[in-house]
């Protein structure tokens, strides 16, 4: 098990040997994993302090002056404070600035509601040029970091605070591509980020308890979303479950729903998300309290299945 933020920081160190880029951090190099990078390449870390609005202007300016890719790192919630700066100074000019945000979702844990970001997928999807990614495992994070560095344009990518289970991931990470981790033609569970591992657990439970065959799709890129994978679901399964560590509006369920409604045969969506604001607690306990455990998913799916 490894925290994706640590994987990110370590990957930056590896990539830095052969790639020139700069990192703008908002006083959280310990929290975002870039402390690894700062140790080895101190002159390539631009510290702007607790000033997320300025961080985006600075990133844009650095890109203008040097033409280098620029990473902005911080906590997901507080980076949203700079959204309006990113909207004009980064997105409008399609600047090569990549935001890598730790502390997304209830996964943030004990720091509580002020720090648990439940709106970031929504917030960054809205900007026309931003690519939005949430990797599901340490191995996928490593591959995604390399792809994001090579991609020319604005990106928002969640990392993760707590250690997550490893899942196998090989080869290149492709923006816009989903990964079918389990086959099945009764329903599809489309999950992103931390919830992918739990989606596999839910699929197991569904099969063991009711013989329901659930397809599990890891959808790390929320934008541009893998429309063809969703189209296949519409043609092949009875309904889609979306599963995300994010609030109700604007995240995976809306992205998938948007895609489903563009097909000729739209099917129902059962969205699993975090209702309302977060609260302090151990991440596993929070999943229980907010009813987003695999058991909760299983229960809700069975209800829908029996009422088809």
């Amino acid at each position, binding site marked *: 098990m490894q925290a994706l933020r640590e994987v990110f920081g370590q990957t930056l160190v590896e990539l830095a040997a052969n790639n020139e880029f700069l990192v703008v951090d908002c006083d959280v190099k310990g929290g975002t994993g870039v402390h690894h990078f700062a140790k080895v390449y101190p002159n390539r870390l631009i510290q702007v302090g607790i*000033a997320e*609005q300025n961080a985006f202007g600075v990133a844009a*300016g650095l*890109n203008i*002056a040097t033409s280098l890719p620029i990473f902005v790192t911080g906590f997901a919630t507080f980076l949203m404070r700079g959204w309006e700066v990113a909207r004009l100074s980064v997105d409008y000019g399609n600047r090569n600035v990549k935001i890598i945000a730790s502390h997304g979702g209830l996964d943030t844990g004990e720091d509580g509601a002020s720090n648990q970001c439940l709106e970031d997928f929504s917030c960054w999807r809205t900007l026309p040029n931003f690519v939005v990614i949430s990797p599901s495992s340490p191995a996928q994070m490593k591959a995604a970091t390399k792809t994001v560095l090579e991609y020319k344009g604005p990106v928002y990518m969640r990392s993760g605070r707590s250690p997550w289970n490893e899942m196998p991931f090989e080869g290149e990470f492709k923006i816009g591509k989903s990964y079918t981790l389990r086959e099945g033609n009764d329903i599809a569970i489309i999950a992103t980020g931390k919830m992918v591992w739990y989606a596999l657990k839910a699929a197991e439970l569904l099969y063991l308890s009711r013989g329901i065959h659930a397809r599990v799709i890891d959808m790390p890129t929320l934008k541009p979303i893998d429309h063809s994978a969703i189209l296949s679901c519409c043609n092949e399964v009875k309904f889609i479950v979306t599963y995300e560590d994010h609030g109700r509006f604007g995240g995976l369920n809306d992205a998938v729903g948007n895609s489903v409604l563009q097909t000729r045969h739209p099917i129902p969506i059962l969205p699993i998300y975090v209702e309302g604001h977060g609260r302090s607690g151990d991440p596993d306990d929070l999943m229980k309290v907010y009813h987003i455990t695999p058991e909760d998913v299983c229960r809700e799916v069975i209800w829908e299945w029996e009422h088809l």
Partner: protein
Amino acid sequence: MQDNRNVLEEKARHIRRATLLQIHRAKSGHPGGALSCVDLLTFAYSIKTPEDFFVLSKGHAAPALYAVFVEYGLLDEASLVTFRQVNSKLQGHPTTELPGIVTPTGSLGQGASVGVGIAMGLKYAKKPGRVICLLGDGELQEGIVWEVAMCAAHWHLDNLLFIIDYNGLQSDAKVWDTMRVQPLWDKFKAFNWYVKEIDGNRMDDIEMAFSIPIDTLVTHPMVILAHTTKGKGVSFMEGKAEFHGSMKLTDNQLRLALQELS
């Protein structure tokens, strides 16, 4: 020096005329704040080298900047009639669609932030060149400006110059009555900047402020607090908040203004 000053003052007059013509034709724009900074813009572009960067952080003064571009051969005069028209490169606030514009502005405070980033990037890449940002005084109410001020001093950006178009007015009223930003000298000094205070509508004052050799700055960023008159050059607009914008100029207002500027 004096000859040069006459030339610059003549340029400034042309630029004021062209600014008002654009706003009148487009039936919208911000005349007051565009006119107040014309002298500063005219001088800045007369000394700007290809290695320097200029950012109009008070983006609503765009028509003045476009007129400056024409005056300095960076834009063809015929384009000016397209100001604010659909599909024109001369948008209401500057965008990077227009060659010579470094970053899109129009959201106050952002130009300053991008400016500090460019200055840092030039230092990192060991490139020469200065970054000059023009800000409004109302703009200093945006918190990001003070994030920028801290950052510039912390990183010793002596290649960064801010000019504050200190006309004392913002969109509805005086800055003093809306949200006091004064005392500005004290604030910038406290933030560790090198501060100069001048009359921003006098070419000789402006020239003197710019002539401080860079190596005397001793690793501080510099700010010129340029006292100006909003609507400068047109008697019925001078000192009036109602000419802030975005507003239509009547035919009569244009005629009277051009008379004064001839």
